[in-house]
């Protein structure tokens, strides 16, 4: 587990980021994850220069609804190969792209969320979209619920949509 103090600091930093205003009827989505949240752990070593290997991390994203202040958590595991047919996926690249795709997928799902929509439904939609986007970028990548033992768990906060 990551130390609570480090997480609080990371939380403050990411809350400083801003979303977009909603004249289109979409929800405001504020806050974003950063590459530093993706504390990947290598669980399958790479074999020489072959497409192979695996690194994964479990993220607990606390989502706060703007209107009510109600919070809930979406937990997901992100895994990427260390090398695929396109070449090595270095740690920094994995972190950068995992964060970018997570933000894009979260924005798309949360900005279209209906009031009262249950978090388990939103979380499932988010995982589905994030999974598709990440593997489009890096064939072999995967997003699921947090299943694996022995990897890092990283919590962070994102405010949930509020209707303008």
């Amino acid at each position: 587990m990551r130390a609570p103090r480090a997480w609080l600091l990371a939380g403050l930093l990411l809350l400083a980021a801003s979303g977009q205003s909603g004249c289109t009827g979409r929800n405001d989505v504020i806050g974003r994850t950063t590459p530093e949240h993706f504390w990947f752990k290598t669980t399958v070593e790479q074999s020489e220069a072959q497409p192979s290997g695996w690194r994964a991390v479990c993220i607990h994203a606390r989502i706060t609804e703007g209107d009510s202040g109600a919070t809930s958590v979406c937990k997901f595991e992100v895994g990427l190969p260390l090398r695929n047919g396109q070449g090595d996926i270095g740690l920094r690249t994995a972190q950068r792209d995992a964060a970018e795709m997570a933000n894009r997928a979260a924005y798309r799902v949360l900005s279209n969320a209906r009031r009262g929509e249950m978090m388990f439904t939103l979380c499932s939609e988010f995982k589905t979209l994030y999974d598709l986007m990440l593997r489009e970028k890096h064939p072999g990548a995967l997003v699921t619920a947090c299943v694996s033992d022995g990897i890092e768990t990283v919590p962070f906060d994102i405010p949930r949509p509020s209707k303008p």
Partner: protein
Amino acid sequence: MRAFTRAELLRIAHDHYPPGSTVFIDIDRSTPEFQRFSAAWKKAMTWERWASLLGGLRAAFPGLPVGNVTQPGMSACLRCCVYLERPLPDGGRVLTRLAGAVSVLAPLYLVYATVQHIRADGTYSRPRYFLQPPDAIKPHAELLVQHLEWELDYRPFPLELANVPVPSRCVYFLNGGEPSLLDALLGRDLDNLP
């Protein structure tokens, strides 16, 4: 070796996935089903025969990339992949990923393939998925099967039972939808190869 029946495969799935939905926020890690799933993965990750299988495959496919493409915990199988390339006259190439998925829950394997066209400019097509490897790579597929059967003593996953539903079970790594026996005992989207 006698083949598994549909009822036996469903029982194995039920032993490792608790009743529930595939739309959820968190896994109840205290269930006996999850404990068994987790223990199966723990055992698989230190399985000496898997390491020796990979070594054997590298010797059997000299000069070809052979990778350990396992997605631990996020599926129900160990995976190996042999990369076969054929150049095309226009400067492009055909990349065939010949994969073996080995269940961590039952002594079953599946040998399958994806075929992708890489164009001369480096762009590529979406890989086509073959649950049964195409004839063009049959000798390679047969060699992979031999290794899986000899070194692991596993038997082929019965493809005729692949789509049998496993209703109302929480197959942890699905993000919704109804699981099938193939999902539960090997994994989803097996064609998603690195």
